[in-house]
């Protein structure tokens, strides 16, 4: 058995251990590699920076608990920027998990001194997926009879002059593509197209490539897609947080991933020439 044959038969658990160690090292000893800000993140940052103070914006937490590590940095970066600009923030969620996640996330900002019903409100979970989005866009108070804290919607000062989605200056979805719930496609179909409300999307990495055509077609204003752009956004805000912190570990993990693909293919081509090998 030569080297490549041994490689082909390597126990998968060894691979797992190698990956885990490769990620652990930079977490303990960060490398602090510099990072460039890409045009897309700059564009989103500038767009929000140019919006007038006191604008009304909504942010929908359309992800499940499994995507928290990937998407929370984006949600937090947006919220930090919104509060810095003095926007009024309305949060909600199209997934049952998202309803809880939004409350947990906003609790963090409440500790920093943001006031409920003055700076932000959490409307919580709305059911119905795309139909729920359509219903909410047409008549915001019908879908939420109470906010996530159980207060009747009419008693909230921030909801007084909200009728339809047109009353918002910007909408954002932080989205993991939850099938059957509020996907990016569903939001784009129901909000920016019908009501012309400006819209920004923060999708998970897997969906970034599919979301790009919407930007070039001018249907949405921009995208913060995945962890790297979130880290860039944190740099733009001059508040390095969760996203930036993980970047070195990501560098290590990606290098290992590419090394594996190269090694695997080297083994494949080395062994392919032998007789009796599976093609």
């Amino acid at each position, binding site marked *: 058995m030569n080297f490549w044959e041994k490689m*082909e038969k*390597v126990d*998968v658990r060894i*691979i*797992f251990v190698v*990956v885990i160690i490769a990620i652990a090292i930079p977490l303990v000893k960060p490398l602090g*590699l*510099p*990072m*460039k800000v*890409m*045009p*897309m993140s700059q564009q989103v940052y500038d767009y929000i920076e140019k919006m007038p103070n006191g604008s009304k914006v909504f942010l929908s937490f359309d992800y*499940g*608990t*499994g*995507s*928290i*590590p990937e998407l929370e940095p984006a949600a937090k970066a947006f919220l930090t920027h919104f509060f810095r600009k003095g926007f009024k923030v309305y949060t909600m969620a199209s997934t*049952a998990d998202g*309803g*809880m996640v939004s*409350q*947990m996330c906003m609790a963090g900002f409440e500790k920093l001194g943001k006031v409920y019903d003055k700076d932000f409100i959490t409307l919580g979970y*709305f*059911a*119905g*997926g795309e*139909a*729920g989005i359509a*219903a909410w866009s*047409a*008549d915001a108070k*019908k*879908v939420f009879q109470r906010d*996530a804290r*159980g207060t009747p919607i009419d008693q909230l000062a921030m909801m007084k002059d909200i009728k339809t989605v047109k009353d918002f200056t910007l909408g954002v979805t932080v989205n993991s593509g939850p099938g059957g719930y509020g996907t990016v496609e569903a939001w784009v179909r129901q909000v920016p197209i*019908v009501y012309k409300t400006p819209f920004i999307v923060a999708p998970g990495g897997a969906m*970034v*490539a599919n979301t*790009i*055509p919407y930007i*070039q077609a001018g249907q949405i204003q921009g995208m913060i897609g*995945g962890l*790297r752009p979130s880290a860039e956004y944190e740099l733009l805000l001059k508040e390095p947080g969760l996203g930036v912190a993980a*970047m070195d570990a*990501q*560098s*290590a993990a*990606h*290098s*290992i*991933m*590419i090394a*594996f*693909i190269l*090694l*695997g*293919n080297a083994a*494949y081509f080395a062994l392919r020439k032998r007789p009796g090998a599976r093609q």
Partner: protein
Amino acid sequence: MRRSLPVLIAIVVGIGMVFDLFLKLPLLNNPMAEVRNWMPIMTSFAVIVGCVGLLNVHYKNIQRKRPGWYNSVILWAVMLSVIALGCTKGTRDATYSFIFNNVLVASSTTLSAVGALFLASSGFRAFRATNTNATILLISGALVMLAQVPIGEAIYGQIPNIGNWIMNVPNNAGQRGIMIASGVGFITVCLRIMLGYTRSYLGGGE
């Protein structure tokens, strides 16, 4: 009657919902807005129905003492306690948040992390350049991956720009082609439901 009434509902609501966008006609707009407002209520029932199905499957496991039936007992106990707690105390209750954070969040992120480990092992064992298509995919994937992380820049300064170009030109073209092509497919699926050509969602039988 058992099949034609549902199909009739589908035709009326489907076509009505489409023309609701194009016509300013209160006679149409108001009932359609009403139907949209029903959806959160009806889909909430559907979610509960699905969970009853889950309980049902596990009830059968217990009843027939299938292997691992004790796990089904645990599932029943945990699920009913969560429901009882959440429905009486609300989701802002401290115990409820505790369970959500330390069981649900911890578990689902762990399972995603397990997925990441499989990704790494597949990178080594299954992602092979066996044909032109797979080769193009792997090259494009590797470049975009490198463009994502600071180490890519450290290796070669132009890597982020190359990644950006791939995303915005060839990827965008491919994605748009797929979007138009499958958009037509999606429109057809919707149209077939609305016009009663597709009835399989109603289930078999008469």
